[in-house]
């Protein structure tokens, strides 16, 4: 399988894991074969549910409540060449515990919930060290500090006594890595370690992993669904679909000569974004649809009665001025906390800014200030400005059928009823690429992409003029994301929509948007045509942001060691 002549540190053969269930078993992974090589990074790609994480856990032999039905996981000592088969061991036996953490370490996607909230970072690292190394506590603490230093955490002596919630997301992930490498493992399994992070942070973490890998000669098993990341760091790639590895090979081969159609689909979807052509700028009328002027939004500054916490005033938006022109797609990019979502909520009347205005000219030509609650009273604005949410799971009421969900705005606004309503819902479903026959189902029967389509159907049900899409594709897997983006583009053209597209993914913005506004710490730092901003950013922050985006091509690796 492996093209490398080197001796693998881990051999996986015919590994299968089942989730036992009343009506038989669900095969999470079936008959996997692969090797991990020292000093090499093997990326596992595939969409969520394809069995990547289960594979990782199966290697550690922690799969309960599932069971490993067959296969072997053999870990081979690099020096002594002694090998140990793991799946046959008791899941809580001393032998396997000696492997876990010491020889195979693992880091996870969500660093907040993967760290105990009630122990300090130091306590958690020290515990790992004490488990596997014959040192006393003082020494372990010293090593923990060293580990923190190794992952570039500032003043590790102090950071070691902090709790996870006192860390930023990136720092938490570093802490996780510090914990993983504290015992100098042979194999590091990273399960989507950067998915929850901003691109800039992601870049730092990727660099860090690569650096540590080189320094220590670790073998890295890296799980991700982001082809850009794969292209950036992988030596080998395994593509998983429905619990099986459908393609396995060196990264260059996977990207430039994919064999399996599914692999091709993945590559295309990510390359598609990258290769979007610059679109012509639509002609501008004399007046923007929404004119945002000098908005300042600030939170808190008051005492909360029941939560017993006193918040200081946090400025979320500062002198934000933007305009949305009819028919254009305006991208708003920035890291989390940059204020982009707050801006969207200001426009929906959810937050009231301290100062500034957002003048919207409605269909009748009346000007309405979206910062004033009064503008929303007659529901007119709600009919014309619609929102698509980030999370396709939480934005659909699980207790309502798809029909009810899509019909709700129509019903509330008294636009249709009875058979007509049903027909319109059917039409809307078909328009977003879903079958009208699915109308009576509940959201939980749909995939993420399908749900997002339902959300879009709801948004366009009222024939709006503006759609605010808040990170609407960031929760989706690559190929699905591309479909949704194309759908939005189609709808724009069909319905003459204007779209404010809020995202942190530069690739997506570049693909979809006409113009882009880059936000940083509540301010707009740069605006311009999408391809100009993405290809030739002026502002230094934008430059950093752009350069942090991994390119989905292993031949154009962009990350450089800091």
């Amino acid at each position, binding site marked *: 399988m492996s093209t490398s002549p080197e001796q693998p540190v881990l051999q996986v053969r015919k590994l299968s894991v089942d989730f036992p269930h009343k009506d038989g078993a669900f095969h999470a992974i079936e008959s996997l074969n692969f090797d991990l090589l020292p000093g090499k990074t093997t990326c596992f790609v595939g969409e969520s549910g394809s069995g990547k994480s289960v594979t990782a856990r199966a290697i550690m032999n922690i799969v309960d409540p599932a069971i490993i039905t067959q296969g072997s996981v053999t870990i081979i000592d690099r020096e002594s060449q002694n090998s140990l088969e793991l799946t046959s061991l008791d899941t809580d036996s001393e032998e396997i515990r000696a492997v876990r953490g010491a020889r195979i370490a693992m880091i996870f996607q969500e660093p907040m919930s993967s760290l105990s909230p009630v122990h300090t970072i130091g306590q958690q690292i020290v515990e790992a060290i004490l488990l596997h190394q014959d040192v006393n506590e003082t020494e372990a603490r010293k090593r923990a500090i060293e580990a923190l230093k190794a992952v570039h955490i500032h003043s590790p002596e102090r950071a070691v006594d902090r709790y996870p919630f006192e860390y930023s997301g990136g720092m938490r992930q570093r802490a996780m890595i510090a914990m993983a490498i504290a015992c100098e493992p042979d194999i590091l399994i990273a399960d989507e370690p950067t998915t929850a992070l901003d691109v800039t942070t992601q870049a730092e973490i990727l660099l860090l992993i690569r650096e540590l890998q080189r320094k220590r000669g670790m073998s890295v098993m890296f799980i991700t669904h982001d082809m850009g990341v794969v292209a950036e760091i992988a030596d080998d790639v395994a593509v998983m679909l429905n619990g099986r590895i459908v393609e396995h090979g060196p990264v260059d081969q996977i990207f430039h000569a994919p064999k399996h159609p599914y692999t091709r689909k993945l590559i295309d979807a990510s390359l598609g974004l990258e290769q979007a052509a610059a679109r012509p700028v639509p002609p501008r009328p004399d007046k923007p649809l929404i004119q945002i002027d000098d908005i300042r939004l600030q939170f808190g500054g008051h005492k909360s009665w029941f939560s017993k916490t006193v918040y200081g005033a946090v400025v979320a938006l500062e002198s934000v001025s933007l305009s949305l022109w009819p028919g254009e797609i305006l991208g708003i990019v920035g890291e989390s906390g940059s204020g982009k979502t707050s801006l969207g909520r200001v426009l929906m009347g959810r937050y009231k800014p301290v100062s500034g205005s957002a003048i919207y000219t409605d269909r009748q030509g009346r000007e309405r200030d979206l910062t004033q609650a009064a503008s929303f009273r007659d529901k007119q604005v709600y009919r014309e400005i619609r*929102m698509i949410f980030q999370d396709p799971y939480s934005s659909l009421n699980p207790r*309502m059928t798809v029909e009810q969900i899509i019909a709700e705005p129509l019903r509330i606004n008294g636009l249709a009823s009875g058979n007509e309503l049903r027909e319109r819902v059917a039409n809307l479903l078909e328009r977003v690429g879903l079958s009208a026959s699915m109308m009576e189902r509940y959201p*939980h*029967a749909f995939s993420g992409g399908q749900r997002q389509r339902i959300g879009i159907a709801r948004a366009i049900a009222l024939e709006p003029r503006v759609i605010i899409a808040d990170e609407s594709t960031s929760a989706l897997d690559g190929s699905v994301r591309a479909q949704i983006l194309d759908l939005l583009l189609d709808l724009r053209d069909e319905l003459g929509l204007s779209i404010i597209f809020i995202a942190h993914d530069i690739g997506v913005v570049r693909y979809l948007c006409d113009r882009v506004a880059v936000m940083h710490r509540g301010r707009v730092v740069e605006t311009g045509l999408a391809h100009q901003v993405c290809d030739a950013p002026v502002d230094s922050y934008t430059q950093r942001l752009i350069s942090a985006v991994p390119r989905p091509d292993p031949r154009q690796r962009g990350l450089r060691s800091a």
Partner: protein
Amino acid sequence: MNSTIMTEAAADLPEDSSTVRGTLAGTESQWQLIRRRFRQHRMARVSLYILILFAFCAVFANFLAPKDPLKVQARYTYAPPQGLHFIDRDENGDWSFRPHVYGYKVEVEPEALRRVFVIDPSKKIYLNWFVEGHEYKLLGLFPSNIHLFGPERKRDPLYLLGSDRLGRDMLSRLLLGTRISLSVGIVGVVLSLFFGVLIGGLAGFYGGWFDAVTQRTIEFLRSLPTIPLWMALASAMPSDWSPLRVYFVITLILSLLGWTELARVVRGRFLALKDEDYVAAALYDGASHIRVVMRHMVPAFTSHIITAASLAIPGMILAETALSFLGLGLQSPVVSWGVLLQEAQNIRVLATAPWLLAPGLAIVIAVLAMNFVGDGLRDAADPYAR
């Protein structure tokens, strides 16, 4: 974990294969899902049957009761339970299916001040189905004197669970008590729910000062020691009220102090739901607050409310019992489990008439069953919980 992975996997299958798995979860509504998951909880299922049985007993108490629960029988004070026999053997030694009990031989021991009962196998009392007995109103509406079963001759003693100090049939009293006790629990919880959902809902939805005041009030009410408070409230009740009125007021008192727990649950759910995107979506659809609350938010935690309620009912039943113990709850001629137990609250009964503790067993079974149903509901409550 398990189910999440499965759903995901199912969802990500290509569309054409959705018929394979999709039908399973496709069009099931929340209730169908809850029902399905609830059915998998064996204890809860059995408990539910038990509760249905209890409810049936409560509704048809009079019909099921073989004797008048209030009828005093001088000859049969503290009569022990009779064994129920099904197979009858006549003089010729032939066997036949004929339910019967044996009569008693009664002796008075003047020194010990008691009646001594000896089961007399020579006196067979045959039981018939649908016999005429004391009059009652079926469902409180239709006058009737037909009872599910009873002795062939109306005046024969039939004490399957023994009799109390006034010779009243314990089984019949227990059945009648079921009605009151269960309804105290249910009515009390319904009232608590009303206050709890209303107040908790307002607090959770609007927050602000109302929430602050509500929070303080709840904290305050919960800091009151319940029993002394009940006592004081119960003893403040004008005594010339009819038993029925007393019953309602007792229930009201219990629920007045019981709403806090539910309000807390409701408030918490509201607070959490308020930030759900689909609630925001409903607002952006232009829905009014009432519609948002009723159509979009309340359905999301009805299952939680039901769970909370199913766990609160036993509390009410026990509270009523405790009040009765202190002599402040319901009282005869109203028959509730608490009243029955209060009458059994003495060494004399423990020593010589332990069958009078049957209501205690009924309480235990009912409370256990409700808790298991509550547990089952909780496990099944939120099939969408991720």
